[in-house]
């Protein structure tokens, strides 16, 4: 029972990071219908920014976090303007390939600048693990889950209640009509990328606190998993990304504990396949059928 609860908590920890990254995928997809393959590498950009500012420049942790967020936002917005915006009216697969190109570019540029070897991330918090109902929970886990949950609530409120959030929802519903209603779609898309990347920046910081190794390809796997989480929950839907992230994280850590470490990826993909087959639009996606 204790093992189970521990794994559940671990799952929530990983899952909340997946959810943060998945939000970036899902928000971008919701508006421009683009699977932004470079999003995982934005995570890597954030991690390198954090490690450079912390270790080489000796900045305090909050300043490093801020730098990571800003760098991610900068990268996200610039990539959107240069690489994705010109392709908005092209076939969707063209922008998908461009995204793959951007992802390769980021990885190889990092490889050139920082080298292939992974760098250890310094330990920032020396807090003893919390004891809780006979469970031992590390402080980072609590912090990660709490920060992610808070951010998701803020995001949800922002999207539902603010004017910019309303513009985002309108643009994701129907891009062209939103334009006709006087919404500046370009600004809205930039904002979407910025928010998504800021969340990835925070996610990056939380990720390297848990897995303290920074390397050029570190973003691929969490990126892919977060993306799958977004699809699992129903891509384009913000609560879907959160749910998908948590489901992925918990499923992964329970499989590792009870079935097999090697097979954990297979189980995760298996869950994805079953969900998509039973409910093709994800856990909480709704079906939009083409009108004949």
């Amino acid at each position, binding site marked *: 029972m204790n093992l189970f609860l521990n794994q559940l908590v671990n799952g929530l920890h990983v899952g909340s990071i997946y959810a943060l990254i998945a939000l970036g995928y899902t928000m971008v*997809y919701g508006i421009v*219908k683009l*699977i932004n393959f470079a999003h995982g590498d934005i995570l890597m950009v954030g991690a390198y920014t954090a490690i450079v500012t912390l270790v080489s420049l000796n900045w305090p942790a909050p300043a490093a976090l801020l730098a990571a967020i800003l760098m991610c936002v900068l990268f996200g917005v610039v990539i959107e303007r240069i*690489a994705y915006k*010109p*392709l908005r009216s*092209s*076939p969707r*697969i*063209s*922008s*998908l*390939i*461009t995204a*793959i*190109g*951007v992802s*390769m*570019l980021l990885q*190889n*540029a990092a*490889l*050139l600048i920082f080298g292939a070897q992974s760098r250890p991330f310094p330990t920032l918090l020396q807090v003893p693990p919390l004891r809780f109902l006979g469970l031992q929970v590390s402080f980072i886990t609590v912090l990660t889950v709490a920060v992610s949950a808070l951010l998701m609530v803020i995001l949800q409120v922002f999207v539902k209640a603010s004017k910019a959030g309303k513009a985002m929802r309108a643009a994701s519903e129907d891009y062209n009509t939103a334009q006709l209603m006087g919404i500046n779609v370009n600004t809205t898309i930039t904002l979407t990328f910025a928010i998504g990347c800021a969340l990835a920046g925070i996610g990056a910081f939380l990720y390297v606190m848990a897995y303290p190794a920074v390397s050029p390809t570190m973003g691929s796997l969490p990126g*892919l998993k977060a993306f*799958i989480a977004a*699809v699992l929950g129903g*891509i384009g839907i913000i609560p879907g990304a959160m749910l998908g992230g948590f489901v992925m994280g918990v499923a992964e850590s329970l499989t590792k504990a009870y079935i*097999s470490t*090697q*097979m954990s*990826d*297979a189980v995760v*993909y*298996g869950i*994805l*396949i079953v969900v*998509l*087959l039973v409910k*093709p*639009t994800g856990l909480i996606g709704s079906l939009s059928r*083409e009108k*004949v």
Partner: protein
Amino acid sequence: MNKKTKAVVLNLLAIFLFYTVVTALILTGTMNNYLSNILITVLITVIMTASLNVTTGLLGQLALGHAGFMAIGAYVSAIFTKSVAMGFGLSLPISLLLGGLVAALFGMLIGIPALRLQGDYLAIITLGFGEIIRVIIENLSVTGGAAGLTRIARMSRAFSEDRALSSAIQFTFVFFITALIIASIFTLGRSRHGRAIISIRENAIAAEATGIPTTRYKLLAFTIASFYAGIAGGLFAHQTSILNAKMFGFNKSIEYLVMVVLGGMGSITGSVVSSVVLVALPEILRGLAEYRLIIYSLLLILMMLFRPKGLLGTKEFSMLGAWERMEAFFRRVFKQKQAQTRMPFQPRYDVWENKPVLETHKLGIAFGGLKAAENISIQLMDNEIVGLIGPNGAGKTTVFNLLTGVYAPTEGQVVLMGKPVQGRMTHQITMDGIARTFQNIRLFRSMSALDNIKVAFHSRMRYSTFSAIIRNSRCLSEERGIDVRARELLRVFGMEDLADVNAGSLPYGQQRKLEICRALASNPKVLLLDEPAAGMNPSETSELMQTIKTIRSQFSVAVLLIEHDMRLVMGICERIYVLNYGCVIAHGSPEEIRSNPEVVAAYLGQEQAELAQKEADDA
């Protein structure tokens, strides 16, 4: 010899020359092992890319797990040659075929559930399956687990004791397999099966309504692609001599997808060109060491920004158009006589005078609590033109969707020529004799007008996929037959000059006409026209009225049409059904309908109707 035939002969000569020169270079040892190895990699990549293009380019479905099928083929083939005691020259071809078949089997098993999804969701699910294949291979003992397989016979050594000779045989072997596969994709693409696959890419709903069993063809394309990927995998295994599941990850699938898109989705020659370039490019850039991949990815981005549709778009080199000319040329050379022209077989309908060809009994459908259509009983006599009118949202198109099986009715039934069509799929209903057009035109836009019609002849042709690939006389004669028929049909509509124009670039009025023409090509007994006059000016509408009358007498069909243009409806319909809120509120001759108070009320509102009635009475 005309210019194009010359071009083909030159192409063939070039291919042959290329082959001979390379073989000679290998035999004399001028081309070292490193270079010939790259060449083999190029050829294997060509197979992978061209086969992925069948799914992604021709069928139009994004697949992200292609490397998984390559892995299956590679492992099956390697395990086979490692475990049987046979001469390599025999065991290799068998193992490749086996690898291809097992990969095809998996392709089919995965395709059956996965192909119900579309677009990005299909992409993700294929990604998932591809990764699962990889993880499972990594954890099986027969595949060597995480360590993988080693000491697989190497083609560059196993064919012969002599290194140079073995390399040359390897090149010959791989070169001809690649050539055969590419040729088969070409011939398949130009057959009725290929047209069916492409029509799904263009418009799946229209394809189904034109008589294409879309589910089956999606599966066919997916299975063929997996089969070829399996063969490529087998070749790969015997090129590298070691296998590891990590070689076939998600990134590998992406790599092939990139090549397909860069070459142009739907262009097989584009795939060939991009495979050659993208395999060679990193090798050429090798001198630049660490900048290599940066340049590569920058080129990728720039390429997409400036040519979003890829190098060749959906176009092919001279080869595609010239294929038939080449055949004609060889026929002349070998004095073979031309294949016969076999006309498509015509379904025979019983003479059905004075009985309804189409009847519905209390037909209805509810979406959740909303009854979109209710208690609809209509009859259509042979050779009759009947109108279906009603205000917006009355459920007219819903009735069409019920008649054609797009929606399954929740109550009542449809009877076509005395037989209930309950539970039939849309494409089967089309073959039974109901054809339709769509309110918002659904043509196969990037196919020629002629090919649009030919798709509709699909169900009346009989030649198999295999005939299509080898282009035997059966295939050729049937193709010639439908070419004649399709052109005849275009001539009836005065569109014979537009046969080779892409449907998407036709003017609006012609597109409407082409859609009617395509519906007629499936030889229907009942033709459903959904707002044929929408967007037409008065003179075009008059022309359309004439056309509909001509169709009725020439093709002996009953016409049921939805239309808002009252001049057209009153002008040509013999009877009219009026629909409001999903129910038939009136039915009768145009005169009866015009003076029916309920109908006037439905269109103008109760108050206005009373006013109109009063005015009529006063007058």
